[in-house]
């Protein structure tokens, strides 16, 4: 029995219909090794702090399996049971959302280093979005059971993985809130607070201060 097979540790018996484990012996296979270059690249993009030691790298690599999704194939669907989290190693994917009675809307993109399906490792029930591969994508998949084992054997790795996941969520949340805020500001004719405060570390210029003085005078309908 292959402990790294996609079906292991997942309560759902439904096959991962679009995820194909890499099966190229001698090359990049389904098993992930700490020294694999794509694994190291993903780690660089994740920027885990403090950096993982050798034993921790082995533990993390051992919990992952590598799989591919062909272009325009679904990685997971909105509402499906969440039992695997994915780290995008290469390729590009898009996030889609379907509200009841409305057509599917593209709401974001996934690039190498991004983590998707994170609810699988924090006890969530189902995916909130559909993710579709835009190009052929290679993912590192982490099942719920594998993360539970990682938590037991290497809690330091688990905490740091959760921390980088949280940071990515922070950026998405802030970007989404900014989208809604800027739309509202556009309709109301005022400067969106999120846009004005986008870079708090940068002191406003004289022109910026002048602009801010005149902003805030909304146009009434």
């Amino acid at each position, binding site marked *: 029995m292959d402990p790294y097979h996609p079906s292991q540790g997942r309560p759902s018996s439904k096959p991962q219909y679009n995820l194909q484990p890499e099966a190229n012996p001698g090359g990049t296979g389904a098993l992930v090794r700490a020294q694999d270059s794509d694994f190291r690249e993903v780690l660089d993009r994740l920027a885990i702090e403090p950096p993982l030691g050798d034993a921790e790298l082995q533990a993390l690599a051992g919990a992952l399996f590598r799989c591919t999704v062909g272009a325009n194939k679904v990685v997971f669907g909105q509402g499906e049971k969440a039992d695997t989290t994915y780290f995008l190693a290469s390729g590009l994917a898009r996030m889609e959302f379907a509200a009841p009675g409305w057509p599917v809307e593209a709401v974001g993109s996934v690039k190498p280093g991004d983590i998707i399906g*994170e*609810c699988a490792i924090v006890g*969530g029930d189902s995916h909130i979005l559909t993710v579709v591969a835009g190009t052929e994508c290679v993912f590192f998949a982490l099942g719920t059971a594998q993360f539970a084992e990682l938590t037991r054997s290497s809690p330091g790795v688990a905490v740091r993985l959760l921390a980088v996941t*949280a940071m990515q969520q922070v950026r998405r949340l802030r970007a989404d*809130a900014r989208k*809604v805020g800027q*739309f*509202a500001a556009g309709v109301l004719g005022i400067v969106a607070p999120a846009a004005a405060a986008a870079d708090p570390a940068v002191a406003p210029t004289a022109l910026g201060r002048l602009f801010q003085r005149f902003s805030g005078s909304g146009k009434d309908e």
Partner: protein
Amino acid sequence: MTPNQIRTVPGWEDANDGEIQMLLNACAERWHRGGTVLIDGAKPAIGAMLIVSGELQSSVEVGDMAMPVEVLGPGHWIGTVSALDEGVEGLTIRAVSEARVLVMGREGLERFRSQPSPMALRAYRMMVRSMYRSMGKLTASVAQVQRAQAQKKKMTRSEMTNIGFSRLSQLAQQAAGRDAVPSQRNVEIVQHEGAPVAANFRAVR
């Protein structure tokens, strides 16, 4: 706040005394009256907050309009966006009823990340779960906004309510310090126990 009170919070039912004590040591307890603003989305929050009791509402607020995102209750973490990454929070959080929260500053979060413990794992898991839920709700709002933007016709203020926006009452605007008459209060604290989590907040008694 006692350990048994913490064990009534969803996600902390099976926490042992050590974990709960670690949480209490890292946090300050705050009470907020219903109607007050705990976090202004246009400003950084003072820290990540665990809702212990009460009901809160998150929304994206601009001027006198708000897009409601989610109703929040015990076990949910708020303020995590600016606690984990400096900058504005994005979502405004208001107390619907009287609310009690535990506030953890950035230093506390940093300590947990570098010194893993069962409590740190639990806290981070719950923060990620809370943010995931919020993202799901906010994504629905983003989709509505994108559909509105795709229309050729420029939307009016009154039409904003058709896509989920609601108008804030003057009282609500005052609570956020956003009304025409500047409010003297940024945050109304009913009670605060524990070390100060920010040197620059003002308590109004």
